[in-house]
């Protein structure tokens, strides 16, 4: 599948290396070095790779403006030790983030996942979500792990259901609490942790539910 990538990166060495890799995998790449150009040219892209350190505009500002007019998938490129930025990026509507330096395999896999998810957005997800050998039946409220019932509690299932409604997407804690506990979620923040620990133990599929520190959770493998 050819993806039209808009690469927003001011560092020429990285931009060229990225572009070469993407070209080699038959994606088309448009490279811009400034945030303002990104806002002008996002319409022709299937995916934005957005560096947050831009010479003219803060990358997060670009993202905020972009989200007002478009829902094009965005992957944010950041540096380590910048968790706050990652979290703000996700809150502003980024679909995923990648830490520099990033390897080819990880880059392509994440791009693929984001684009696939964006395509699936248009088709409503069915009642059955399957990840590896875990089968989540949202209608029957049942979870099978390797064909056996995982025996989740009501709350554990509710949490998993919220995550399973958007497989692969980052879901914020706030949203989880809103959807599972409704308005009455004052003070449940800690019990969410406890329920998640229980959920992970019962699924017994390490890495299936990942934590995005300071933001929330994601269901599914990268």
């Amino acid at each position, binding site marked *: 599948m050819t993806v039209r990538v808009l690469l927003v990166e001011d*560092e020429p*060495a*990285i931009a*060229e*290396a*990225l572009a*070469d*890799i993407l070209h*080699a995998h038959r994606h088309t790449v448009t490279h811009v070095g400034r945030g303002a150009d990104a806002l002008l040219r996002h319409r022709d892209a299937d995916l934005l790779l957005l560096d947050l350190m831009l010479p003219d505009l803060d990358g997060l500002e670009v993202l905020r403006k972009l989200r007002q007019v478009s829902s094009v998938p965005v992957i944010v490129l950041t*540096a*380590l*030790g910048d*968790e706050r930025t990652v979290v703000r990026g996700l809150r502003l509507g980024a679909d995923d983030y990648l830490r*520099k*330096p*990033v*390897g*080819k*395999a990880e*880059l392509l896999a994440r791009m693929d996942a984001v684009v696939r998810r964006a395509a699936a957005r248009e088709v409503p997800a069915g009642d059955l979500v399957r990840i590896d050998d875990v089968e989540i039946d949202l209608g029957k409220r049942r979870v099978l792990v390797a064909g056996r019932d995982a025996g989740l509690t009501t709350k554990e299932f509710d949490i998993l259901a919220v995550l399973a409604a958007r497989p692969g997407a980052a879901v914020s804690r706030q949203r989880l609490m809103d959807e599972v506990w409704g308005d009455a979620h004052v003070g449940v923040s*800690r*019990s969410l*942790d*406890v329920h*998640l*620990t*229980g959920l*992970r*133990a019962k699924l017994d599929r*390490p*890495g299936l*539910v*990942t*934590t995005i*520190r*300071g933001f929330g959770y994601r269901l599914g493998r990268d």
Partner: protein
Amino acid sequence: MRTRLLIVLVTLALAVVAAFAVPLLLSTAGQRTQQLVIGRSADIDRFVVLAQQAADSRDASALTADATRYTELYGEAVVVVNAQRVPLVQTGGLAANEPAVHALVEATMRNEPAPQVERLTPWSDEAALFARPVGTGTRVAGVVVLRASVAAATTDVAERWSAIAAGALLVAVVFVLLAVLLAHWMLRPLTELETGVLAVASGHRAQVRERAGPRELRSLARLFNRMSDAVGEAAEQQHRLVADASHQLRNPMAALRLRVDGLAPHLDEQAQKAYRATVSEVERLEKLLDGLLALALADSTATRLAAGADEDEPCDLASVLAERVDAWRPSADRAGAKLVPADGHTEPVLVRCSEGQLAEILDVLLDNAVHYAGDGATIVAGWSADPAAGEATLSVADDGPGLSAADRERAVRRFWRGGGEGAPRGTGLGLAIASQHVRTRDGRLELHPVDPHGLDVRIVLPLAEENA
């Protein structure tokens, strides 16, 4: 030092006050006694004249009338005896045959000097007896004895003594206050300097006031501030250099990584070996950069926390442990190790540490265990809480080869790498980062041997107050 200084100053002040007050008390009492003696001497002299006249005229009626009136007026008793010790007058209930009066009469008959009236104190209640011989020189014609009440005089003495005592007390209080202020003024800069030195010793900046205390201490304070600035500056520069360097290296690293990755399809068989080595070196370089940056961040977190800016929420240790163990299990499986998760928990175990920091610490511990314990090892991650001691302990124990006692000492040093030949090549920064994080949270990182072999890394963190 403060106590000693205060003891010396206060003792000195009290001694000075006492040296003034005691002679003053004595002289006041003496003066009033003297006044009493002089007053009564005049009275007794008059009775002596009257007694002489009575002896001469052999008529004691005038004497008796006078003595009776005197007693009525002043309430003081008078006894007059003649040469044959026959009482001529006895008023006010005083009798000549009372032992004290008798002895006094006999002594006066022999012309012995009358005993001195003792110096009065506010507590004197014994009446003073005055005696005077009647007649001249060798021919003593009788004795006049006067019993004077000291009540009025002692009241006067008490009043004056109270005034003096009040004054002395006031002065003493003022002196003690001055001593306390002086000690405070001299010692406060020293206390501040001590706090400052401790702060600098634990790696923080500190400033002391330069305008307080004695001149010698002020210049010391100035010098201390300059030193603290220099030390802080140096530490900051070091952190910044590390942070900047790893940030600046990041972009070329990112490009290099992508370029190297892009090479793979174009290489022939012979180049593959060199290529794989290159990739592993690049990966190692990345890890080293990450480690350096993480260390610089841990240092700056330490500085931020030391400055009292702790707005981080406590985190649930058991949840974070469960989550990190979950995340590391695939890695452990690939390395052939078995990672055993901790038991579940129903109540959060809150520790005073941010979630991010605790996760970073755990990543170091689990990474080390997975990569150094080796194939077939069992890694047990567990926790325990001790509310009485206000501590929670996290433990990641493996049954791998472990570390020798000497190596356990060295393990938290920067760039120290464990393992001999064939061991994975880490950055040598992991435990240094973890230990720095733990220290900033007033916790401890301990390495213990496991019987028969293996390593147990324990993290002890203070529980958050919400638990208690």
